[in-house]
């Protein structure tokens, strides 16, 4: 293993320490339990948006803490869900009284830890709701699996819901919006190489020089199939068509009923894409793929969307939800309505996503 690290056991902590120093105008980092939070939290009368997950997907989630996006993020060990004590302490720190929305990627560990955190927060009187992101079309069925995984749509949901929270929307409205983003977003990824978890020291899986894995998860979980390497255009077409031609997807998720204080089952359906839809096209690097190659993918994706009658009204190209140093790409298409477009365009100022926010100096004033 060849990595730019000091000690394996200090990877997460030292990275967060560096991040706190680099972005002291925007964020703070709390240790034991570990969470990243907005420098001026809690923001009066604002619902706090919190996410979290295993480390190794940077900049998600810690890089999205700041104005107009997340109020806090809970990083776990590399590829391991964070724990309920982190999520609870983060909620206590950033809750203004208006409550907390946990945005949870659909992985067994994340779901169970956030459910326990929500129960603990609710028992302390903090209004709380958990909304799942499950957008990975590589997982075809939900009956015999833990369901679709949460991938690229998570980044987009955190931006859009974060902007709505900034406008002062209440917890229920934000939960509804987050659910709406989730059911309108679909993603699929692929890998050219494996990644190496520092604590393990060797690649998670073996992939030959002439092979690729289509439908990979963000922790190196195997995908739909392993096949001989193809060109960027062919790979883009495989991913894009799997997303665009995905049929209506129905599953049951567990959400917290605050009034009853119990979990309820909610059935959700993702409507398929239709010609005429406005979409946000998100081309994401798994960590090791350069931006130049992402644009080769975007070029083909643009052509396919045009051919399929989908109008790309916004886009995002870069490394935002990664899998350590894995080479590969994921594509996310999110059907956008006018409100979602407006919220996407709203100012954001975080370590990893920033626009419309004016100069850093001007923005850091009220934070001081």
């Amino acid at each position, binding site marked *: 293993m060849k990595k730019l690290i000091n000690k394996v056991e200090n990877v997460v902590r030292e990275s967060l320490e560096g991040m706190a120093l680099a972005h002291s105008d925007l964020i703070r980092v709390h240790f034991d*339990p570990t969470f990243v939070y907005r420098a001026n939290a809690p923001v009066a009368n604002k619902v706090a948006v919190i996410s979290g997950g295993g480390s190794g997907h940077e900049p998600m989630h810690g890089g999205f803490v700041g104005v107009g996006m997340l109020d806090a993020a809970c990083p776990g060990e590399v590829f391991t*869900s964070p*724990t*309920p004590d982190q999520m609870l302490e983060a909620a206590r720190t950033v809750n203004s009284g208006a409550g907390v929305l946990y945005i949870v990627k659909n992985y*067994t560990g994340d779901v169970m*830890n956030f459910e326990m955190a929500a129960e603990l927060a609710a028992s302390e009187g903090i209004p709380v709701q958990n909304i799942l992101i499950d957008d990975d079309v590589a997982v075809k069925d939900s009956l015999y*699996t833990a369901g679709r995984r949460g991938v690229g749509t998570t980044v987009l949901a955190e931006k859009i819901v974060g902007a709505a929270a900034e406008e002062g929307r209440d917890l229920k409205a934000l939960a509804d919006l987050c659910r709406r983003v989730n059911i309108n977003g679909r993603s699929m990824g692929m890998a050219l190489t494996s990644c190496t978890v520092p604590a393990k020291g060797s690649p998670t899986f073996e992939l030959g020089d002439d092979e690729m894995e289509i439908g990979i998860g963000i922790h190196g*979980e195997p995908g739909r199939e392993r096949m001989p390497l193809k060109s960027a255009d062919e790979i883009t077409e495989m991913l894009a068509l799997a997303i665009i031609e995905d049929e209506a997807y129905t599953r049951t998720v567990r959400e917290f009923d605050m009034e009853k204080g119990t979990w309820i089952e909610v059935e959700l359906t993702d409507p398929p894409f239709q010609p005429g839809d406005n979409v946000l096209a998100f081309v994401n690097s798994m960590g090791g793929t350069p931006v130049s190659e992402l644009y080769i993918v975007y070029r083909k994706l643009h052509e396919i969307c045009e051919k399929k009658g989908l109008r790309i009204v916004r886009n995002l190209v870069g490394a935002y939800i990664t899998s350590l140093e894995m080479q590969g790409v994921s594509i996310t298409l999110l059907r956008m309505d006018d409100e979602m477009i407006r919220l996407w365009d709203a100012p954001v100022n975080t370590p990893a996503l920033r626009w419309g926010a004016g100069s850093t100096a001007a923005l850091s004033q009220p934070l001081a």
Partner: protein
Amino acid sequence: MTLTKTDVLAWLRNIATVLAENKTYLTELDAAIGDADHGINMDRGFQRVMSQLPTVEDKDIGTILKTTGMALLSSVGGAGGPLYGTFFMRMGMAVAGKEELSPEDVHTMLAAGLDGVMQRGKAEVGDKTMVDTLAPAIRTLGNALTAGHHFDDALDRMVAAAEEGMKSTIPLVARKGRASYLGDRSAGHQDPGATSSYLILAALRDTLKADE
């Protein structure tokens, strides 16, 4: 024959030792069908338990087990954290206030832990999870005690059933957790959670054997 507080503390220390010894093995099992962190996480969790045991050593068995569960919940992460955290916390609640446990108490305690795991994880026997080890093992212990077998013998039967349950996961296709994404490709691999559950139950038997 009873399980004393000293036995419970020795059991927890044994688990920590066994999980440390099997850290790489569990992680390799997980690499085949999951995300290659189970051994690392369980080892980290029981190291945390070991660091917190001195603060509760003079308390009752229920408190010791609840503290163990909380330590796991806040240090293991992944699915293992809430599941093993719940397992030990529910066991602790089932034997709250006790300083020693009869064989029947041990069965009641383990059954309460299993109940908690099944509620939290929504898994059934056959889903290729830790339930495949725990459910038949704990049922076997209960049956053996009801049939009048000596505690020693009942524990041997429990561990044999646990081993069989663990091995039963090899041909299964996973339906819960990260391994479920593999579909048919998860068959042919032993489930790491079922394996750590076996190690934990075997450590209980071994603790009492060493005691004799």
